């Protein structure tokens, strides 16, 4: 039985780690779920502004938007 307990503990370790490690518990995430905390609240508006940046600036990428450029010159 001792070995069974240790075996189960070993098997459960990755799951326990992934479950124990959240130092912010799901029930503590009310603020994080608020829309004022979103990086991409309105994708249509966000995507357009990134299009303006890419058209007017040499820098491109790492803007958090998905896709691959505007395909414009």
């Amino acid at each position, binding site marked *: *039985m001792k070995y*069974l*307990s240790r075996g*189960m*503990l070993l098997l*459960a370790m990755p*799951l*326990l780690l*992934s*479950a*124990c*490690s*959240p*130092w*912010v*518990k*799901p029930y*503590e*995430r009310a*603020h*994080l779920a*608020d*829309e*004022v*905390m*979103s*990086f991409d609240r*309105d*994708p*249509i*508006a966000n995507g*357009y*502004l990134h299009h*303006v*940046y890419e058209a*007017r*600036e*040499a*820098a*491109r*990428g*790492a*803007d*958090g938007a*998905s*896709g*691959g*450029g*505007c*395909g*414009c*010159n």
Partner: protein
Amino acid sequence: MAATKRLLLAFALLLPLIVQAEVLAPDRLDVMYHSYDGGGATIDGPSVLIRKNIGNSVAVSANYYVDMVSSASIDVLATASEYTEERTEYSIGAEYLNDRTIIRAGYTSSEENDYSAQTGSINISQSFFGDLTTLTLGMSYGEDTVGQNGNTEFEEDVARRRYQLNLTQILTKSLIAAFNFESAVDEGFLNNPYRQVRYLDPNAAQGYSYQKELYPETRNSDAAALRAIYYLPYRASLRADYRLYEDSWGIEASNWELRYTHPWGERWLFELKYRSYEQTQADFYSDLFPYRDAQNFLARDKELSEYTSDTIGLGVTYYVPEQWLWVFDKSTVNLYWDNFQFDYENFRNVLAEDAVVGEEPMYNFDANVIRLYFSFWY
């Protein structure tokens, strides 16, 4: 045996945390009018984005977007005449959710009378550690065909590749941060077939002449960004972004942004932001070359010069009472305005009258960007 029971009990208690899977974003329709007005160019048009879930694990989306361009920018006035054109873009996308993994694929097609572009993209997101961490890896590949109005013989190609890594991390119950890294590789005809560079020409009446610009056929760039959003002690948030960029053309750029978002009552949400951008010039850029064919590569595109840009943005969102639009779960009306101020350090205003060649005042302009959009959740 008691140890086993305790273990099973602990496992059962933690199970809700373990199996809490991701969910897809809700069904949504956005209709936007966008407008850019500055530096002699106006670009406006509609954009419509629709997103629909099919069951619990698949979502599809489609976007229709139009740019209607009317340009009399300083480049156009200096070497050509005002023009109008239209660019139409269609995008489709699909998402597949499996537990904590989301796979996304997309395709975009953009057409204008002298330029067409097709881009395919794919990315995969995985959340870890009780959904505190989300890692996304993505890539895209695009093929562009560059044409030239009035020259049916002219046709060149560009291949564009992008590789992205995004890491989003919940740090505290009020703070979320993200790290983004992106490499881009472009190969092919990268200059603009219409744009020209100027060089000193003692035989010309105005003291200088123009010749076509010529860029290298490859451009590699890396960009890395850090972002964070903090939930303030009252219901509002403060966001900070910082990005660094460099490329094989010798351009180094950075930008930072602060954004304050403040709901007011149940129906209103206000946003205020400031963004600052600066970049150095490309190695082969010059406002005025000393003579014709002065270098292997030649550029006088103001976007490749050294300059700064400051942006102030204001926005408001109104949550429409449900009884007004009862067919939707939620509806919003949004108006966002951004004012850009561009100040060029080594791009001169050749339209300035009575100026000595090479000593014209530096060019600057401001632009207003409007986003008016309606969002409906259903």
